[in-house]
C-alpha cells in the first residue's frame, strides 16, 4: 500500500496561469500534501456527477485564487493511497480556451506541478466530441485515466464503446463508470492507483503540445488557388490550433471513434433525430410550437378554474368574515383599519392570490417542456425566424426569457456582442408578454369570453410575437439598417424524461417569485390606492376616510386620464386607474381593480360583473371589443418600473424614455384601432 507522501513529486514547470503558481496548490488541494487529481471533461459529460460519487457529495465550491471562476473541491479517499484532493474543473471541449472558465481548466491541466493526475471524463454517447479534449490532454506530461461515462445513454442509442480498444488507442487506462448509480468507482480507484505506479505516459504526438502556432498564411491544403471557402478568414489567436493540425486531429478522432465504437441499432439513434426533423422544420416547427403553447394555455385555464373559484370563495367568505370578526372584537368595525384590511389587503392581494393555482399549473407545464428538451427546439424555431427577418439570431435568448419576466430578459442582452444588437433587443423585450400580464389576460378573458379564455390568452401571446417581429422589422428598416446577422448552430440537449425534483424546483422558484411580488410591491401599491381612495376628490365635499370611492381622489385622478382612452372603448376610471397603477407592476392591475370594485360594491364577489358593466357603459354596448382593446394596451405599454430601471442601465436614459414613448403610442394606437375596427364591423 502506498501513502500519499510516497507519490512522485511534480516537476518544476512555468506558471500556467496568471495568479496561479506552485504556491497556490491550495486552490485545488485542501492540504498541501494531498496528491491532486483533476476531473476534466466536456460540459455535460457527467463530470460533476462523478465528482459527487467519488467524494460522497462532499463538495466545497469557491473561486479559484486570482480568478472569478468557481471550481469544486473535495476529498476522494482511496484505500490504497489515502486521501486525494479531487478538483472538479470547469468543462471544456479542448485545450484551446473559449472562456475564463475554460482558460482556468486549460491552465491547470498544462501545469503539471498543480495536478498530479487527470481523470479525463469521456462521454460514450458523444465520444467524438470527448476525443477532442482527450487528444489535447494526451499531449501533456501528466498521468491520465479515462473515465467513460454515459454508457447507458449510448446503449440506448445502440452504441457500445470498447474500453480496451479505446485504451489502446489513447495509450492510457480507460474505465467504464456509472456515477449516477455509483457503480464501478472501485475500478476507477484501482486504475488511478495503478497509474500512480506507472511513469507519465508519452504524448500521442497528434498536435503540438502547446497548441500554439502562427496565423495561417494561406488557405487550407485541400483548397485550390483562389478558393473562397473561407477557411482562412479571420486570423486565429496564437493559442489556436493550426488548421492543418485540426484536419489531422479530426481524421484521428474519426478513426478512433470508428475503431472503438460498435453500432448495434442505428434506428434508435435516428428516432430522436427524426423528432427534431419535425419539431425544428422551417414551416411545421413554428406551427407545432404554437400548437403546444395553445395546449398549455387551454390546460392551464381549464384545470385551474375550479381551484381559482374555490380560493376566491375562501377570500371573500371565511377570510373576510374573520377580518370583520377580528375588527369587531377589537372594536374597530367600520373604521379605517377595517377598510384598509378588507378593501385593500383582502380585496387586492387576496384577488391576486387566487391566481396562484393557475400560475402553478402553467409553470409546471412550461417546466415540463424545458426539462424534456423541447424548449431548446423552440429556440431553434425562434432563432430561424429571427434570422429570416434579418434580426440578430442571439436576440432570441432575451426574447424567450422575456416571456417569463422582462427584467432578467433585458439584463440578458449583455450576451449580445454588438451594441446595436443590444439596443434593438432591449427595445423589443417589453413587447414579450411576461407572466405578470398573464393574470390580467386571464381575468379579462374569463370575464368577457367565458369558455374561450384559453384561446384568448393564447391569441395575446401570438400578438406579442407579432409585435416583436413587426416592431423589430420597423426598427431594422429605419434606425438599425447597418446591423449584421449572427448565425448560430445551437447545441441541442438530448430529449429526456422530466425529473419531478427539477420540475418541483423550477415551479417553486417561479411561484415564490409571484408570491414575493404579491407580498411586497403589490402590498405597497394596494396601500397607496387605498389611501387615494379614502381622500375626497377636490370639490366632492367628503371627509378623509368617509368618502365613497367614486368621489375619491383616486377616482378623480383616474377620471382625468380616462378621457384619453374613450376612443379605445374603456375610458372609465376603474380600468384606467388600474392601468396607471399597472405601470408599477402588472399584477397591480388586478389588485387595484379588485380593490376599487370591492370598495364600491361593498363585497369581494362580483368583480367580473362590475368590470363587465363598466366596460359595457364605457364602450357604448361593445364590451368585448373594449376588452380586447384593453388587453392589447396591457400587452404593449410599459411592463413595469423594474423593467425601466434595468433598461436604463443597459441602454441609457434617453433610449429608455424613447422606448416608453414608443410603447405608449403604439399601445394606444393599437387599442383604438382594435376597438374601432371591431365596432365598425359588428
Amino acid at each position: 500500500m502506498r501513502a500519499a507522501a510516497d507519490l512522485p513529486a511534480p516537476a518544476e514547470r512555468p506558471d500556467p496561469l496568471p495568479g496561479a503558481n506552485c504556491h497556490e496548490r491550495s486552490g485545488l488541494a485542501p492540504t498541501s500534501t494531498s496528491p491532486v487529481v483533476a476531473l476534466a471533461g466536456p460540459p455535460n459529460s457527467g463530470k460533476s456527477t462523478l465528482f459527487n460519487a467519488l467524494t460522497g457529495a462532499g463538495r466545497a465550491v469557491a473561486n479559484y485564487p486570482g480568478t472569478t471562476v468557481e471550481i469544486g473541491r473535495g476529498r476522494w479517499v482511496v484505500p490504497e493511497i489515502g486521501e486525494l484532493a479531487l478538483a472538479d474543473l470547469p468543462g471544456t471541449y479542448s485545450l484551446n480556451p473559449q472562456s475564463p472558465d475554460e482558460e482556468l481548466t486549460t491552465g491547470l491541466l498544462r501545469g503539471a506541478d498543480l495536478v498530479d493526475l487527470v481523470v479525463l471524463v469521456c462521454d460514450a454517447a458523444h465520444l467524438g466530441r470527448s476525443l477532442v479534449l482527450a487528444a489535447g490532454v494526451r499531449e501533456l506530461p501528466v498521468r491520465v485515466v479515462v473515465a467513460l461515462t454515459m454508457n447507458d445513454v449510448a446503449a440506448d442509442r445502440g452504441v457500445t464503446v470498447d474500453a480496451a480498444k479505446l485504451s489502446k488507442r489513447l495509450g492510457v487506462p480507460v474505465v467504464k463508470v456509472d456515477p449516477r448509480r455509483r457503480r464501478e468507482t472501485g475500478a476507477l480507484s484501482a486504475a488511478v492507483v495503478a497509474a500512480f505506479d506507472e511513469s507519465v505516459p508519452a504524448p500521442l504526438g497528434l498536435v503540438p503540445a502547446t497548441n500554439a502556432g502562427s496565423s495561417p498564411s494561406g488557405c487550407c491544403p485541400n483548397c485550390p488557388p483562389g478558393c473562397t471557402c473561407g477557411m482562412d478568414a479571420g486570423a486565429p489567436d496564437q493559442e489556436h490550433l493550426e488548421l492543418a493540425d485540426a484536419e489531422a486531429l479530426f481524421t484521428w478522432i474519426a478513426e478512433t471513434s470508428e475503431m472503438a465504437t460498435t453500432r448495434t441499432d442505428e434506428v434508435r439513434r435516428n428516432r430522436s433525430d427524426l423528432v427534431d426533423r419535425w419539431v425544428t422544420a422551417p414551416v411545421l416547427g413554428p406551427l407545432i410550437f404554437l400548437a403546444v403553447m395553445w395546449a398549455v394555455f387551454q390546460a392551464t385555464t381549464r384545470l385551474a378554474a375550479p381551484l381559482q373559484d374555490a380560493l376566491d370563495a375562501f377570500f371573500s367568505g371565511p377570510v373576510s368574515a374573520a377580518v370583520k370578526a377580528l375588527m369587531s372584537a377589537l372594536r374597530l368595525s367600520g373604521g379605517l383599519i377595517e377598510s384598509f384590511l378588507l378593501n385593500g389587503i383582502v380585496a387586492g392581494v387576496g384577488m391576486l392570490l387566487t391566481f396562484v393555482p393557475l400560475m402553478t399549473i402553467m409553470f409546471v407545464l412550461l417546466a415540463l417542456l424545458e426539462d424534456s428538451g423541447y424548449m431548446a427546439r423552440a429556440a431553434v424555431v425562434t432563432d430561424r425566424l429571427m434570422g429570416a427577418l434579418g434580426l440578430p439570431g442571439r436576440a432570441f435568448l432575451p426574447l424567450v426569457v422575456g416571456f417569463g419576466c422582462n427584467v432578467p430578459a433585458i439584463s440578458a442582452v449583455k450576451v449580445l456582442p454588438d451594441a446595436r444588437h443590444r439596443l434593438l433587443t432591449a427595445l423589443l423585450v417589453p413587447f414579450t408578454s411576461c407572466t405578470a400580464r398573464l393574470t390580467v389576460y386571464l381575468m379579462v378573458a374569463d370575464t368577457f369570453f367565458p369558455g374561450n379564455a384559453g384561446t384568448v390568452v393564447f391569441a395575446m401571446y401570438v400578438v406579442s410575437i407579432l409585435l416583436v417581429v413587426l416592431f423589430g422589422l420597423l426598427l431594422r428598416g429605419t434606425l438599425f439598417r447597418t446591423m449584421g446577422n449572427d448565425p448560430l448552430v445551437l447545441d441541442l440537449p438530448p430529449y429526456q424524461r422530466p425529473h419531478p425534483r427539477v420540475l418541483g424546483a423550477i415551479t417553486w422558484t417561479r411561484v415564490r417569485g409571484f408570491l414575493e411580488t404579491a407580498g411586497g410591491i403589490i402590498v405597497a401599491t394596494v396601500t397607496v390606492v387605498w389611501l387615494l381612495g379614502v381622500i375626497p376628490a377636490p370639490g366632492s365635499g367628503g371627509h378623509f376616510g368617509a368618502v365613497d370611492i367614486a368621489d375619491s381622489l383616486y377616482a378623480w385622478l383616474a377620471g382625468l386620464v380616462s378621457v384619453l382612452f374613450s376612443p379605445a372603448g374603456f375610458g372609465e376610471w376603474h380600468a384606467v386607474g388600474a392601468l396607471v397603477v399597472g405601470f408599477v407592476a402588472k399584477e397591480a392591475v388586478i389588485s387595484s381593480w379588485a380593490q376599487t370594485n370591492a370598495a364600491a360594491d361593498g363585497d369581494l364577489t362580483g368583480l367580473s360583473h362590475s368590470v363587465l358593466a363598466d366596460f359595457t357603459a364605457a364602450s357604448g354596448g361593445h364590451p368585448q371589443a373594449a376588452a380586447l382593446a384593453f388587453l392589447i394596451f396591457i400587452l404593449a405599454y410599459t411592463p413595469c418600473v423594474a423593467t425601466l430601471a434595468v433598461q436604463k442601465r443597459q441602454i441609457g436614459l434617453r433610449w429608455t424614455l424613447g422606448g416608453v414613448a414608443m410603447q405608449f403610442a403604439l399601445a394606444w394606437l393599437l387599442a383604438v384601432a382594435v376597438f374601432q375596427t371591431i365596432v365598425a364591423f359588428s
Partner: protein
Amino acid sequence: MSTSTVPAAPPSPLQSILREVRAGAGGAGEVARRTGLGVDMVEAGLATLAATGRIRRVLVFASCTPSGCGGCPSATGCGTKGSPVSASELSAWRAV
C-alpha cells in the same frame, strides 16, 4: 492561349461543417443531414473548429445549475422577483 484551371477539391468535413455554422443551421442534427456526416462527428468537428479559433461556443441560455452563476447571462436578474430558471443550459456555436 488557354489557361488551365485547377479543379476545386471537395471540401473537407471540417470545411463543410464550418460552412453550415456560417449559414446558421438549427443544430448538429441539421448539420449532419446537410453534410452527410454522423451527428457525433459533427459535434467533434465543431469542437475541433473551435480549437482553431474559426468558431466560438457561446452561452445563449443559462440556468440556476449547481455549476454556479459565473457564466449566466441572466445573472443580474437572477433572484429578482419572477426571474426565470431553466432546467438546462443552451449553448451555440457561432463563426468568428
